[in-house]
């Protein structure tokens, strides 16, 4: 089973699903018994989620969407406005 140092060192790779299944299981086993590391894991998982959700709130104009549709030619998508 992984210890605290190993778990924290590999926390990001675990969150990124980049660990082998066996190593991920070892991290999970440690998180089940260590509240400190579990807290760090939950914090970083929350932070990832917040970054993902809050960085995708840009307004996209209907005119721009029309321009994108025109890249495919009017005979493919037509020229409907709106998302």
């Amino acid at each position: 089973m992984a210890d605290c140092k190993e778990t924290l060192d590999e926390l990001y790779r675990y969150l990124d699903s980049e660990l082998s299944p066996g190593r991920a299981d070892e991290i999970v086993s440690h998180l089940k018994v260590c509240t400190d590391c579990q807290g760090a894991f939950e914090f970083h998982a929350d932070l990832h989620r917040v970054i993902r959700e809050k960085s995708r709130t840009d307004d996209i104009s209907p005119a721009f969407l029309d321009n994108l549709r025109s890249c495919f030619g009017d005979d493919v998508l037509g020229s409907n406005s709106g998302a």
Partner: protein
Amino acid sequence: MTTRETFANDAMSHAPQLFSTAMRMTRNRADAEDLVQETFVKAWRAFDSYQQGTNLRAWLFRIMTNTYINKYHAKQRRPQETELDDVEELFLYRRLGAIDQSRISPSAEDQMMALFTDDDIKRALEDLPETFRLPVLLSDVEGFSYKEIAEMTGVPIGTVMSRLHRGRKAMQKLLYEFAKDRGLVDESRLEDN
């Protein structure tokens, strides 16, 4: 629906995500729109080389990232920064105790969502040096694997991992500074260990 129609409709469904990432890459709306439009033009021209059933989203992001690196990177007003001050591991997590939770809306069920505004997150991403901004965008925002990011940016996986690690720490430091600017931090609450 023809294969081309399906492709075009699927590509359009990815437009909002492509645009948001383009905004973070270029840091201005006009360039972001140009970048996404150029991406779609290239994608349509390369339609015959796209393998049906494979990951269209990753294919589009690869085109966009490549276009950005080759074209818009040269237009950056700031000189490309490759240096980044080293930041402590788990920087933000270790300073949670300094954040005055009472100053965040007490009714907020999700304290983390209430702590940072949309603009905080976007500004932190955009303030990262480009070398570190791209892997953070492609991983933390778009969820691509290290291997996919390495292919998109043309650097080895080990380099992706290193830049991602440093970029994330730098972003945490930026977010902490934004929280301080908004009066949410009381560093006297931190205990000396």
